[in-house]
């Protein structure tokens, strides 16, 4: 496919630091290859800004192949932009037309404070994970081979689908309530479905949900926006599983 070049207008959120008041700034960028990724387009814009002696736009990125969960961006009103099942690094400029105006904003959530421009602090997710998103294993001495425990294929598949979560925060960003329940639901599910994780399932769900509430995320109202915008297509069935596990825990844990 022959590559095309388009001219675009960008409205990008600029904010000096977490305390500063931010605003949308308008930039024009010409000759953007439709084969370039959205992040490469931002690199091109930053190069232009540096040449003009302006400060470049800060945005999160790392692997640029859709598996690290580092890139974010709320593009034209949707997390990771208009395509589905992808992260922003996998979004290509061929999704846009010549002359388009593109709005780029950071994830908006009380629990994800802005660090600078489009970068947000997602360490709330780390703290939720630390509260229970693990399996305690005694690693001293002779440990057992994990594959020695028989696990039904269907359960293993479901656990794997939940574990595909890369913690990017698109669920929080697209939820009208800023709820993190798809993330927590996925993390609870990936362990609860497996025998190694079942042992601590009750404590895990209670602790992770408590941390989630402390971080100031909103409550799930089952709009389903998160599963549509999730780059890994994680189902809200995982939220239902978390709800079940939580009820079990809340009723039985002293």
């Amino acid at each position, binding site marked *: 496919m022959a590559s095309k070049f388009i001219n675009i207008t960008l*409205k990008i*959120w600029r904010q000096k630091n977490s305390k500063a008041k931010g605003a*949308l700034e308008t930039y024009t960028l010409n000759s953007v290859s439709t084969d370039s990724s959205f992040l490469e387009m931002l690199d091109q814009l930053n190069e232009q800004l540096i040449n003009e002696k302006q400060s470049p736009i800060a945005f999160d990125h790392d692997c640029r192949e859709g598996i690290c969960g580092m890139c974010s961006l*709320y593009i*034209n*009103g*949707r997390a990771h932009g*208009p395509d589905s099942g992808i992260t922003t690094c996998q979004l290509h400029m061929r999704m846009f037309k010549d002359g388009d105006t593109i*709005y780029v*904003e950071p994830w*908006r*959530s*009380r*629990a994800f404070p802005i660090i600078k421009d489009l970068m947000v602090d997602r360490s709330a997710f780390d703290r939720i994970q630390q509260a229970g998103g693990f399996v305690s294993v005694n690693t001293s001495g002779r440990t057992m081979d994990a594959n020695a425990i028989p696990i039904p294929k269907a359960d293993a598949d479901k656990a794997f689908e939940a574990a595909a979560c890369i913690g990017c925060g698109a669920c929080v960003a*697209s939820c*009208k*309530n*800023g*709820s993190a*329940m798809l993330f927590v639901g996925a993390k609870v599910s990936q362990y609860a479905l497996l025998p190694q994780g079942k042992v601590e399932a009750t404590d895990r769900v*209670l602790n992770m*949900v*408590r941390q*989630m*509430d402390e971080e*100031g*995320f*909103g*409550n*799930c*109202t*089952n*709009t*389903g*926006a998160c599963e*549509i*915008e999730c780059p890994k297509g994680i189902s*809200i*069935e995982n*939220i*239902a*599983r*978390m*709800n*079940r*596990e*939580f*009820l079990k*825990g*809340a*009723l*039985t*844990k*002293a």
Partner: protein
Amino acid sequence: MSNSVLFKSSIAKKYFMALTGLFLCTFLVGHLLGNLQLIFKTGEEGRRAFNEYAYFMGHNLFIKVLSYTTYIALIVHAVDGIMLTIQNKNARPVKYAYNNPKANSGTASRNMAILGTLILVFLATHMANFWWKAKITEEIPLHSLVKTVDYPVGQNPATGEMITKPIEVTHYLNTNGTYQQFKVKDPSTGQEQKLFEIKNKHEFYDLTSHVKIGDGYKDLHTVVMTFFSKDNSSALFGVIFYVISMLVLGYHLWHGFASAFQSLGLNHPLYMPIIKKIGMAFSIVVPFLFAIIPVIIYMNH
């Protein structure tokens, strides 16, 4: 810890929302079955059936327990909903400048708080119009029936024919199932004679012995019929407001029904599609049947 978790946590709030919501769905079905009697039976028979039903609903112990549970469920549902909405608004202090929520979620699901508030407004007017009168002020007439009968006053001495004159006899429907004669009135002279008296708004007392001889039915049927009849100048507004409110209720249920199951953790690939279909059918059929009742009354009266 467990006790506090069941009240404080975000997920527990959703359990309460779901449980009260589903309970209120069963209330809707019960209320609807009662209301449908307004259009399925006509005349004095229909009026009597509805008033007897209303009396049963007000006096049966089991129904009383159910109705208090309904008040509590409604309050919990509303208060919990307000708390959740405030928390959810706080979770995103800075709004998006450009947002496209249509791309990933349904209109009803994003507007449950607004739809719920509108339903609450409807409920306030609904209770002021019917519930308040029936339960609190009891400004409801008793079920009475005026019949004109030919009353013999003498005999024509020449022909031996009975001389009659029409008099109006007012009957009150007694909760023992009989029509109790209450007063007779001679329309030509305007003279009337009471056969017993009414105390405490609905109790029948003997005039001489002052003993309670019966109990009357409140005529809720007539209250409803007059409220929605064309003779009432505000009836058309009442009907339109009612129909719009039912539309709002339908939207609220469109999301709420299946959502309640999801909140309770009852999402299973086998059953969720069925639950969703039942929810859609419920949210269309129940509000529709509610809405046609005042429309039919308005057109027929």
